[in-house]
């Protein structure tokens, strides 16, 4: 052994070259300050409803502490299939569902199951930060597609068509969208599906926020459009719909042959999702529809309040129709997203996430989560109004 041995040099080069998440940067500063009013966290503020927690506890009391089958409890898989049918009119059998450790695992599995070195993965941005890095780690070249502010950050068929090449293997559809709150409606999806059907590409549809759409229109899954089911992996989970983030439970829904491939990976890497979480999730799916509606109604009130707040502060904010984020434009202040967030934190102790953390097309915007109490949102907005006012003096 030589003394110059550096274990870091052994690390995977792609991994080392990946930049750290831009969301953390500001929050590392915020965590050193007292009394910060944060609108930064992308996680429900609700606690998992008690009857769901209690089902998890009961499973422990009964000693159900062993592994489940690799693909998840049979009862949970069939409840998931029924839930998708009941809530979104989607047709899946129990053997077309794989229970995963959060939606994130299902995203990773899908990337690794489809990608061979050199494949291209189309990733619309701004979007959740994991798609590009996971695609790269699986050996793909991420092809970023910049969603446009003039379309309220919705994906258009024309934009997608431009990015498709003979190497396109996977198309990520991250709607309802984190961080923008934009959704794709049935007619837009239909045009997008027309483009995708002419390719040999598969679709990773991240529908984790599917339950949280607000304008009276239910989420439409791309998988329910003609010719799309056979090439789509729907990724979702329990975190956002049932406020179950810490239970780490999600699922992938896809045709049985794709699920079989995902399960092969899942069984080597993960074995199975945690049992207690799975028992709790059965309760969530069978008795939890009312909880979803109640939380959604509360989010909707906050959504209107926060959008009104940003607009009152002079920061134009288009109406977010899904998830629990809004994405106001801060270009009128003359500051970059990073500067805006840093100064807002320093001067008013309000924490937002710079839009460019979700891709370069997010520059000039900031993400505010409204998974916070009304009182909290109101004091954050008051700070933002003071800050923007001070810039204009």
């Amino acid at each position, binding site marked *: 052994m030589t003394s110059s041995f550096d274990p870091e040099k052994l690390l995977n080069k792609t991994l080392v070259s990946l930049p750290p*998440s831009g*969301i953390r940067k500001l929050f590392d500063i915020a965590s050193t300050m007292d009394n910060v009013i944060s609108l930064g966290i992308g*996680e429900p503020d609700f606690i998992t409803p008690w009857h769901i927690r209690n089902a998890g506890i009961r499973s422990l009391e009964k000693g159900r502490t062993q592994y489940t089958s690799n693909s998840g409890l049979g009862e949970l898989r069939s409840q998931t299939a029924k839930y998708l049918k009941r809530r979104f009119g989607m047709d899946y059998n129990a053997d077309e569902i794989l229970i995963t450790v959060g939606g994130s695992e299902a995203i990773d599995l899908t990337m690794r199951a489809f990608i061979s070195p050199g494949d291209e993965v189309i990733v619309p941005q701004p979007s959740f*930060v*994991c798609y590009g890095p996971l695609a790269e780690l699986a050996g793909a070249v991420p092809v970023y597609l910049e969603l446009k502010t003039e379309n309220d950050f919705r994906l258009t068929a024309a934009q997608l068509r431009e990015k498709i090449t003979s190497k396109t293997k996977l198309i990520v559809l991250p709607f309802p969208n984190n961080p923008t709150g934009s959704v794709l409606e049935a007619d837009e999806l239909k045009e997008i599906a027309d483009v995708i059907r002419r390719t040999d590409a598969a679709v990773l549809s991240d529908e984790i926020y599917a339950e949280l759409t607000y304008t009276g229109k239910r989420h439409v899954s791309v998988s329910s459009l003609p010719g799309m089911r056979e090439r789509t992996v729907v990724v979702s989970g329990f975190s956002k719909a049932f406020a179950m983030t810490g239970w780490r439970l999600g699922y992938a829904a896809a045709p049985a042959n794709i699920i079989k491939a995902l399960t092969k990976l899942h069984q080597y890497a993960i074995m199975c999702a945690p049992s207690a979480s799975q028992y709790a999730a059965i309760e969530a799916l069978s008795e939890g529809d009312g909880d979803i509606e109640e939380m959604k109604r509360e989010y909707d*009130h906050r959504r209107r*309040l926060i959008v*009104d707040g940003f607009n009152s502060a002079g920061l134009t904010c288009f109406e977010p129709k899904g998830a629990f984020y809004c994405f106001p434009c801060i270009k009128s202040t003359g500051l970059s997203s990073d500067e805006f967030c840093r100064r807002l934190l320093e001067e008013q102790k309000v924490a937002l996430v710079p839009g460019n953390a979700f891709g370069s097309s997010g520059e000039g915007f900031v993400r505010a989560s409204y998974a916070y109490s*009304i009182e909290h949102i109101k004091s954050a907005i008051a700070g933002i109004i003071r800050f923007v006012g001070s810039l204009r003096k």
Partner: protein
Amino acid sequence: MDNEILELLDRDSNLTARDIAVMLEADESEIERRIDYFKNEGIIVGNKIMINWRKTSREFVTALIELKVTPQFGRGFDQIAERFYQYEQVKSVYLMSGAYDLALQIEGTNLNEVALFVAEKLAPMDAVVSTATHFVLKKYKEDGIMFENKPSDDRQVMVL
């Protein structure tokens, strides 16, 4: 919409008519009119803050009193209840189904004061057949608000 307005105010009476208008996508002056109506009709009867007095230096005890009473001809329970709820020490009065008729919540500075109040003011009333006094040892939750182990926001920084 009336119930939505009331539910919002029930949870947070500090909300302004403008807040409510934004949250319900309604007209601010319409919300103001509804709130005035609720007040005039006795639908909104008060506006109160929740205090966990156990965390203060104030000395007090609370008791729940079960009362069996004989409703008198032509007077019913309402008039008996009225004779109880006029007392300032009586914080709540409920007409109950089941083993007893009226439930009273009484507050005083100490056990003795509450016991004497029951013995001297309530028990001797003509209509009262029997009383049972239960002292409250600890309040965990009231009107949907948790008094102990209030959940705090301990969400940690995440990449999403």
